[in-house]
């Protein structure tokens, strides 16, 4: 497997000849990685050593066959992921983050736009393998037309991993009756001394929200658009100006 040592910020376009890639983040470093063109990938692995931070931004806009993301996070280290999923047709993604040592942290933010005949299944797992580890997952989706969007995944705090925290949030706004949208994050907890929460919401745009916005002069369509953008736009803060513009134009084109 090809290995890349990250000791400075990097923008990396995957090439179609590579199927597996490992990124190593050295101890005591703080780096940003922007990944694109990951459609042909099968495995993306991240090794974050001790006292290090990886800011990972992934922008996917074609299809994803069956991509696996794995990450191992060391002591006092952190991975912060922003995943902008604007893939079409298919996205089967499985991400697993292992918090292996004391004070290892993971933050995962994903926004997914699913339209037409898209078929998306996104599982994000965080394994708390050490005490005092902290994980947070925020998956936001918009599901339209005949598409299918599933958010799954497990946050698992194993026995003995006290003082860990784990939060999961999965929200999908559904536009059409033919959509299939499911949010089923699972919390698996084998330890008492922890803090955990999870929320899963799948539903149409709230009527009271539409009334509120239209009572200020917005048309129903504009109100829905603004509310929907509210699900997707928060992902922008993980990206540079250039990618933000690309994402913005994709959103506007497809909504």
């Amino acid at each position, binding site marked *: 497997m090809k290995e890349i040592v990250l000791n400075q910020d990097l923008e990396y376009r995957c090439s179609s000849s590579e199927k597996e890639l490992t990124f190593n983040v050295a101890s005591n470093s703080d780096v940003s990685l922007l990944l694109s063109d990951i459609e042909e990938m099968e495995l993306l692995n991240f090794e974050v050593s001790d006292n290090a931070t990886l800011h990972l931004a992934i922008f996917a806009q074609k299809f994803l066959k069956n991509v696996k993301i794995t990450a191992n996070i060391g002591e006092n280290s952190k991975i912060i992921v922003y995943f902008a999923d604007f893939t079409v047709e298919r996205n089967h993604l499985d991400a697993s983050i292992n918090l292996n040592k004391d004070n290892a942290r993971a933050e995962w933010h994903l926004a997914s736009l699913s339209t037409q005949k898209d078929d998306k299944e996104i599982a994000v797992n965080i394994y708390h393998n050490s005490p005092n580890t902290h994980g947070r997952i925020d998956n*936001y989706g918009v599901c339209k037309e005949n598409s299918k969007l599933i958010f799954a995944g497990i946050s698992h705090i194993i026995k003995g991993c006290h003082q860990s925290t784990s939060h999961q949030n999965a929200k999908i706004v559904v536009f059409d009756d033919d959509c299939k949208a499911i949010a089923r994050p699972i919390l698996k907890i084998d330890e008492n001394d922890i803090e955990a929460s999870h929320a899963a919401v799948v539903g149409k745009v*709230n*009527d*009271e*929200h539409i*009334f*509120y*916005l*239209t*009572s*200020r*002069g*917005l*048309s*129903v369509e*504009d109100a829905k658009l*603004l*509310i929907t*953008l*509210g*699900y997707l*736009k*928060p992902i922008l803060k993980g990206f540079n100006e250039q990618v933000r513009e690309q994402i913005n134009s994709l959103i506007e084109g497809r909504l």
Partner: protein
Amino acid sequence: MATLKISDLHVEVEGKEILNGVTTQISEGETVALLGPNGHGKSTLLNVIMGHPRYKITQGTLLLDDVDITNMTTDERAKAGLFLALQNPAEVPGVINSDFLRAAVNATREEKVSTYKFYKMLDSATKELKMPFDLATRSLNEGFSGGEKKRNEILQLLLLEPKIAMLDEIDSGLDVDAIQIVADVIKKEEEKGMGFLVISHYARLFDLIKPTRAIVMINGRIVLDGDTSLIKRIDQTGYEFIKTELGIEIEKENANMNTVSIGTCAVKETIKK
């Protein structure tokens, strides 16, 4: 001068009649106090005027400047100059307050305002309301305190400059200083010609805004329309005189009424007898 005329309005929600023949009117430059025990249809009236789709008008008409708005959509009514500050403003996650405010400002004006002008308007309105500017950059009402939500409603009023503004319990959740700020805005806008229909359970707000008229809603109908001495009377003695003097039985009572508010104690006693 803009006038909102409500004639013989009958309204149902989920098959239950809540308003049964409301007739009244509010003109620009006038402030009308709307009083009545909890659960008698005050909020319903305001929501119906704003065109809330959940309420069904079965009879009667709404006219604004002699234009029939009974069948207009909510956004058309907003553009025509109506505004409702909600009793419980919704939290809308992900929608940035300033994005929403700007969309609203542009929707209700003939000409779009420039980014520069919008931020100047926003800056001066937040200053007037002594609101931290940071509230404008956050998700709409999300995590706002009760008082911050109410100020955000008044911020929208200042930016949209409606002809007739309806305020539903705007003072609940506001501390004394904030009530004063809101009252100052109401007085200033009234002088400039805005009309107000104000629901409140507290004499304090009415003492500050000095309404021009007071109307009382009982059992889904306006049963009294008079000067502001009505507010004082209800504050001191409750709604019992309506039964004894007008012979109107006060039908129902909302379980979660506010016990320190105008008139509710008297209603409770009436019902117990």
